[in-house]
């Protein structure tokens, strides 16, 4: 007990002193290393507290226990991942985003419709849409289609609102230039306005992945076959196997941030010509 307290204070003091020194420096390496050190310090203190003070496993398993659970339950985690992410989230996400994108392009032709739909879409987007999960489970059954449907509905509105905002974002000068070229509506749309809307679209894509993941996981609380991340989390929590729950949460976190990072990378590759990315590249951060 005393040893643990000593170890904790020592590592906290040492780690914090190091953090202060690193945080005072500029440069890209320190910008990445400082938060990593902070995360490592947090994990280390978590471990020390759990082992040293004998925190019961039903309260908080130590990080090493979680890592062990992750390693031993790898096949099960993979099955849950396939069920929730590959079967439910990805199709739902793709469907919702594509529908939102196409609906935005359709709305673009009519100012009247846009004025009618946008306020409603904004309103609906701010609603607790996860609540439709029980209805979707009733319509599409316990398996992945109902989860994909929830994810699709949740991703639809942000994509719609963002794409419409992006499409109206081109300046008068650019549009005048297209008109002076004698470009038709569709040519202007494809060559000028859709590319110009891409930053907004990517914003929605990044935001939507987390939403889709949340939608699918929460929908599993309403009924599932006996596989899936949401199912596993709720049943293992009820059985007090918290190390498995934490492993599953870690999997969800890794999935969410990995997809976010992948989308951010894709954005930089696709939007290499855009000022926001160019500034990014020039400043080196």
């Amino acid at each position, binding site marked *: 007990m005393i040893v643990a307290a000593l170890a904790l204070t020592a590592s906290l003091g040492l780690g914090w002193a190091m953090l202060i020194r690193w945080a005072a420096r500029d440069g890209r390496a320190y910008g990445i290393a400082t938060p990593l050190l902070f995360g490592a310090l947090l994990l280390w203190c978590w471990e020390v507290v759990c082992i040293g003070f004998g925190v019961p496993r039903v309260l908080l398993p130590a990080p090493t226990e979680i890592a062990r659970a992750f390693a031993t339950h790898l096949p099960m985690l993979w099955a849950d991942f396939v069920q929730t992410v590959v079967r439910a989230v990805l199709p739902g996400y793709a469907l919702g985003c594509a529908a939102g994108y196409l609906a935005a392009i359709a709305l673009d032709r009519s100012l*009247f419709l846009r004025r009618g739909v946008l306020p409603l879409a904004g309103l609906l987007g701010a609603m607790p849409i996860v*609540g*439709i999960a029980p209805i979707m489970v009733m319509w599409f059954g316990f398996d992945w289609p109902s989860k994909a449907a929830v994810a699709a509905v949740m991703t639809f509105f942000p994509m719609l609102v963002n794409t419409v905002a992006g499409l109206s974002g081109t300046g008068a000068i650019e549009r005048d230039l297209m008109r002076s070229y004698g470009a038709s509506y569709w040519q202007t749309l494809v060559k000028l306005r859709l590319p110009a809307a891409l930053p907004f679209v990517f914003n929605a894509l990044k935001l939507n992945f987390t939403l889709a993941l949340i939608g699918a996981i929460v929908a599993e609380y309403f009924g599932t076959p006996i596989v899936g991340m949401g199912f596993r989390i709720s049943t293992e929590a009820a059985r007090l196997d918290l190390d498995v729950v934490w492993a599953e949460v870690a999997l969800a976190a890794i999935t969410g941030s990995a997809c976010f990072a992948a989308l951010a990378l894709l954005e930089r590759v696709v939007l290499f010509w855009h000022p926001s990315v160019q500034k990014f590249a020039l400043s080196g951060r």
Partner: protein
Amino acid sequence: MIRGAARRAAPIVVVLLGLVGMWYAAALALDLRAGQALAGSGASPQALIAAAWSLERPLLPAPHQVAQAVWSGLFGEPLGSARSLLYHAGVTALTAALGFALALVFGIALAVSIVHVRTLDRSLMPWVVASQTVPVLAIAPMVVVVLGNIGLTGVLPKALIAGWLSFFPITTAMVTGLRSPDRMQFDLMRTYSASGRDIFAKLRWPASMAFLFAGVKVAATLAVVGAIVAELPTGAQAGLGARLLAGSYYGQTLQIWAALIAAALLTLLAVGAADCAQRVLVARRGGRL
């Protein structure tokens, strides 16, 4: 003024009417078979449609059925009754409000320390941003179970989940807001030889309010979502989430839809309250935020 409002409202009304029409059509399409069974084989088309739109457990209830269920749930039951939607909405609202209050206090405190302590800014802020990509709601069942183990039950675990969810928009908005004054304004404060506390109270804090309220509106919605989802794994007896779950178990579609509409109304109320608070503040500060 009035004509402008009418011109703005007209498209919304038209689209709404269109949506309601589509809803009726969809309800008819989905419930026709069950309606046929109810009305008998020799029924006239009108009777068939009427039957399809008034089923007890429709696949998709017609709008007027949902409105009726919401109305009777809100006002047709005694307040203490387990079927009163007002009671369930009140339970959820209490959870959400408590969680939101926690999030407001901790979010602002964290933002203030992030802005003032460079070490925290460099080490913690990236994690706050990255945590947005994590499906936080996934931890809800665990939080409830763990806190139940150490004897914390009732409203607090649910409020913690609601608070955890609404914590991030407040923090990020507040950090941006506290940093929003530009260089010249800080320099001006320095020429007045203002202390750090003065700079905070007279420049940073007032400047952050517009950002805070933008974050607060997002957070208010998330607090309601968090409160509803937190009610799912607790097997809670009361609350809109419990209504959703019970309706899902027993196939009571009308109950699900009514709870859903009540949740939407609650969200509107929460965002409206945030908007009112903002207006009051604007009025007190002489028309600016």
